[in-house]
C-alpha cells in the first residue's frame, strides 16, 4: 500500500475545507494525526476512508478495506439504527438490531469477532439491542467491527476516548500485535497516548497539513509536543507575585513619553526629533528597515542607551537623568530580543532563568522565594517544559530559549512588554510556538505590548497603533 495525496483540496458540506494536502503514507509507517480542536485532523483521517468532496488535486492508492473508527462513524451507525426503528414503528414495536447482528454484518471473520468480543468483555451484551447501548459500549462495538473487518488500513480517530484504563491498555496491546500487518493512522490529541509503534506524526492547522515529523527526530517531536500543548492547554498565564509587586503607576500619566528625541552615532543622526507617547493599555507595533534605529529607540526606553541621559525622556513616572537608577526603570519593563538571547549565555536552570525576570538580571544572583519558584513552575507547565526545570538554559534549542525568555519577561507582569523581533531566526514551527505564547499573553494580561519587526505588514492580533521608522528620516505615522 502506498497512499498519495497531491495538492488535495477537500470540502465537507461547505462546513469545512482541507486545503492543498500533500502527503504520502506507505505500509511500513504508522501515523498519528494531531492538531488543535477544529484544526481539521478528523477531516484528514476521514478523507482516508473516502469522506468529503474532492475539489482539486488527487488521492491515489486508497485500499478497498479501510477500518474506520470515529465519532462520526459511531454517530452514523446509531442514526441508521434509529431510522430503522422509525421505519418499523407502524408494524410491531421493534427491539432494534441486536449487537451480534451488527458485529457479523458485511462478512466479518467470526472467530476474530468472538475473540474481540471476549477481549472487550461484551459477551453479556451480544443479544442487547445496539441502540440501547451506552456510548462507551457502542464505541467498543464500532472498534470490534473495524478490527474484525480484516482491514488493509486502520483509521482510528480518538480510539482511546472514553475507554476505561483496563480496556485502553488491552486495546493498545492488541494494536501493537497488528503493526506488522496493518498500517495505522490514529487521530490523537495527547502525546502521552501515542503508542510506541507510531513512526510519524502529521500536524494539522487550519485545514492544512502544517508539519510532518519523523518520530525519531527528537527535536521536532518535542517542539510539536509544545506547540500542541500551548494550543490546547487550559493553563492560564500565571499570576504576578504579590511580594515582588511592581510599584503602582499614576494611571493619568502615559507609560512612555519621548520628546523630540535624537540619536546620533559618529555625528550621524539615526533618529531625528521624534515624538512618541505610549499610553496605558495601548499596544504598539514598531517597524522599519535595518539601521532605521528601532533598537536604539527601544534602548532609550529601557535605559540601555547612554544617550537616554541627553534626551527628554519620561518613563514610568521618571524624568530621565534626575537621579533614578536604571533598575528603577527596568522593573516596569519585560524585554525580549535576539541580542538578549545572545547575552543570556548561562548554564542556569530553566526555573531560575524565569525567576531572574523578577530581578531583571541575566543569571540569578538573589535567593528566590518559594512563591517565585512556584510561579516559575507554573510558567514551565504552561510552556510544556515542566520536566526540564533544572536543565541548563544553554542546553535548550534556540526556539525553546526564546519561549523561556518571553516567560522571563512576563513573569512579573510588567506594564510594558517589549518584543524586539521575537520570531527572528526561528523556523516556522518555533514561530508558531512563539506567536501562540504571545497571543495567550496578550489575551490574559493588562500589559501593553510593544512589538517590533522589520515588516509593517506582519501584523499581530490586538495591536492597533503603528510607528514606522524610515532609514535616516524617521517619521511617526
Amino acid at each position, binding site marked *: 500500500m502506498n497512499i498519495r495525496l497531491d495538492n488535495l483540496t477537500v470540502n465537507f458540506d461547505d462546513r469545512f475545507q482541507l486545503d492543498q494536502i500533500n502527503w504520502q503514507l506507505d505500509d511500513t509507517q504508522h501515523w498519528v494525526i494531531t492538531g488543535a480542536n477544529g484544526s481539521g485532523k478528523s477531516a484528514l483521517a476521514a478523507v482516508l476512508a473516502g469522506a468529503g468532496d474532492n475539489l482539486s488535486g488527487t488521492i491515489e492508492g486508497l485500499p478497498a478495506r479501510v477500518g474506520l473508527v470515529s465519532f462520526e462513524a459511531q454517530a452514523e451507525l446509531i442514526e441508521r439504527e434509529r431510522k430503522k426503528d422509525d421505519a418499523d414503528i407502524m408494524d410491531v414495536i421493534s427491539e432494534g438490531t441486536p449487537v451480534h447482528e451488527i458485529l457479523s454484518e458485511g462478512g466479518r471473520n467470526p472467530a476474530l469477532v468472538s475473540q474481540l468480543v471476549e477481549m472487550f468483555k461484551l459477551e453479556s451484551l451480544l443479544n442487547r439491542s445496539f441502540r440501547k447501548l451506552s456510548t462507551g459500549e457502542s464505541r467498543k462495538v464500532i472498534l470490534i467491527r473495524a478490527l474484525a473487518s480484516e482491514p488493509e488500513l486502520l483509521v482510528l480517530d480518538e480510539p482511546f476516548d472514553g475507554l476505561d484504563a483496563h480496556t485502553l491498555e488491552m486495546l493498545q496491546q492488541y494494536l501493537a500485535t497488528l503493526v506488522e500487518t496493518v498500517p495505522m493512522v490514529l487521530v490523537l490529541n495527547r502525546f502521552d497516548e501515542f503508542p510506541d509503534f507510531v513512526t510519524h506524526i502529521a500536524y494539522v492547522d487550519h485545514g492544512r497539513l502544517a508539519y510532518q515529523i519523523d518520530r525519531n527526530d527528537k527535536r521536532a517531536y518535542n517542539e510539536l509536543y509544545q506547540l500542541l500543548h500551548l494550543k490546547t492547554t487550559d493553563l492560564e498565564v500565571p499570576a504576578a507575585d504579590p511580594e515582588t509587586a511592581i510599584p503602582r503607576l499614576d494611571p493619568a500619566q502615559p507609560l512612555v513619553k519621548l520628546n523630540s528625541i535624537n540619536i546620533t552615532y*559618529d555625528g550621524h543622526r539615526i533618529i531625528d526629533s521624534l515624538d512618541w507617547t505610549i499610553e496605558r493599555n495601548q499596544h504598539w507595533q514598531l517597524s522599519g528597515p535595518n539601521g532605521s534605529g528601532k533598537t536604539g529607540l527601544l534602548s532609550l526606553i529601557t535605559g*540601555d542607551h*547612554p544617550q537616554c541621559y541627553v534626551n527628554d525622556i519620561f518613563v514610568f513616572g521618571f524624568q530621565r537623568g534626575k*537621579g533614578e*537608577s536604571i533598575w528603577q526603570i527596568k522593573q516596569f519593563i519585560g524585554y525580549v530580543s535576539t541580542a538578549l538571547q545572545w547575552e543570556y549565555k548561562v548554564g542556569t536552570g530553566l526555573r531560575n532563568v524565569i525567576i531572574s525576570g523578577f530581578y531583571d538580571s541575566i543569571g540569578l*544572583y538573589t535567593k528566590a522565594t518559594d512563591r517565585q519558584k512556584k510561579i516559575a513552575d507554573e510558567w514551565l507547565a504552561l510552556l510544556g517544559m515542566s520536566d526540564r526545570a533544572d536543565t541548563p538554559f544553554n542546553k535548550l534549542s534556540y526556539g525553546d530559549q526564546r519561549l523561556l525568555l518571553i516567560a522571563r519577561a512576563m513573569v512579573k507582569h510588567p506594564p510594558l512588554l517589549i518584543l524586539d523581533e521575537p520570531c527572528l531566526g526561528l523556523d516556522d514551527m518555533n514561530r508558531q510556538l512563539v506567536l501562540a505564547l504571545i497571543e495567550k499573553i496578550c489575551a490574559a494580561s493588562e500589559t501593553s505590548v510593544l512589538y517590533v519587526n522589520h515588516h509593517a505588514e506582519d501584523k499581530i492580533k490586538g495591536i492597533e497603533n503603528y510607528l514606522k521608522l524610515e532609514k535616516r528620516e524617521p517619521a511617526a505615522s
Partner: protein
Amino acid sequence: MSNNYFNTLPLREQLEQLGKCRFMSIDEFSDGVEALKGKKMVVIGCGAQGLAQGMNLRDSGCDVSYALREAAIAEKRQSWKNASENGFVVGTYEELIPTADVVLNLTPDKQHTSVVNAIMPLMKQGACLSYSHGFNIVEEGMKIREDLTVIMVAPKCPGSEVRNEYVRGFGVPTLIAVHEDNDPKGEGLALAKAYAAGTGGHKAGVLMSSFIAEVKSDLMGEQTILCGMLQTGSLLCFDKMVEEGIDPGYASKLIQYGWETITEALKYGGVTNMLDRLSNPAKIKAFDLSEELKQIMRPLYNKHQDDIIDGTFSRTMMEDWANDDKNLLGWRAETAETAFEKTPAGDVEISEQEYFDNGILMVAMVKAGVELAFETMTAAGIIADSAYYESLHETPLIANTIARKKLYEMNATISDTAEYGCYLYNHACLPLLADFMKDIKTDVIGKGLDLEDTGVDNARLIEVNTALRSHPVEAIGAVLRGHMADMKKIV
C-alpha cells in the same frame, strides 16, 4: 623623588595595615548609593576604568561628569569620544573640579602625581578624592590636603568586565579602603561603600582593606602568577614544542587558547578542579612538575614580594619612568619579536579536553604560580581573602586577554606597572627555568602522555589528591567562590 609612605610607618603599623582585610556582608550595603545622592562626582580620565565605572555610577542614579586634560578635549582623543558620545558632560579641570564633591582619579598610575598636583588646588574644601589603585599614596607617598577625604574603590577586574557584569545585574569583586590619614569627617567608609554599590561591586563581594594591603598584594599578583608566569610559560612552552618538531601553528594555538581553557576550570573549582580535568597519570605528572617548579621558582617569588614590600620595585620602576620608560619600551619591543608572538595560531581543531591533555606543563605552571603567589603573599602578612583575589581569581581574566591577541593584548590591557613587573619577572624566570626545560618532552607539552598504560599507584594518587585539596588557597577559594556562587548561579 617622593617618599615611600609604607616605609615611613613603624613596623607595628605596617603589619596592621598589611593584615587589614574583611569580607563585607551584603547587608552593609543596604543604603545603596544614598551617601552619594546630591553629590557631584567628577571622573578624571576616561579610559578602561573611567568609562566603565562612570557609566555604572550614572546608571545607579549618581551625577557623573568627566574632567579631561585640555589636549584630550582639543584633539578629541578617544577619552573625549568615550565620554561625550556616551552623553556625559565633559570639561576641563578648571571647569569641573571646583564643583566636585567626589573626584575619581582614574588616570594611569604613572600620571597620578602630576594629575593630583594639578587638581588638588582646584578641589572644594572637604571634598573627597578617590583612587582605584593605591600606588600613588603608598609607593609615592603623595600627601593629600588635610581637609580632603581619600578613599579607594578598586574593582578586581578589567573595565570591560566592570561594565558587562553591571549590565547583567551583577558586579565584580571589589576592594575598598579609606586612607586613615585623610578621613577628616569620618565619612570615608560611607562614601566608599556607596561608590562600590554604585558600580555593582557589592553584589559580587567587597573586601574592606587598606591602601597598603591593596598595593602590596596587587603588585605581587600581577607581576608573578597573573602576567609574568603566563608570559614566561608561553615563551618556554612554544619554543620547546617547536624544538621538538611540533607544528608551530598548532603550538601557537595550544598556548594562545590553552591558558584560557585550563584556567576556566580554575575559575569554577580552583586548582583541584583544574587538575581533576587530567587523566590520573597526567594529574600525577602535572603535580610532580609543579612541585619541581615551585622549588625552583620560590626564591624568585620571595624576591618579588620582598622588593615590593620594601619599595625596591617601585623605586626602580620610577627610575625607569624618569628615564623615559627606556626599559619598559625596550622589553615591550622585545616581546613583540618573540617567536610565539610572531607565529599565528594555526587553523587546527583543538577540543576543550585536548588543551588539558596536551598542556600538562601549562597546568603545572598555573598551579605552581598560583600556589607560590598565594603562599608568598600570606607569608608577608596579607590576608588569605586578598591573596586569593590577587592570584587565583584574576588568572582566568588575564588568560582571556591572551586568547584575544596573545601577549600583546595582555600587556596592552594591564597597567604599565603590571607590564613593567611582568617583564621583570620574565627576565629572571626564563634563565631560572632553563635547566628544568631541558628535560621537558612533548609528552607534557604538545602531544600528551602516551597512555598505553593508564594505571596509577593508588597510594600515590591519594597522596596527590590530598595535597591538592588541602592547599590553603583551596580552602579560602571554596569559601569565596561559594559566596559568589550563592548569588551567581552562572555555571
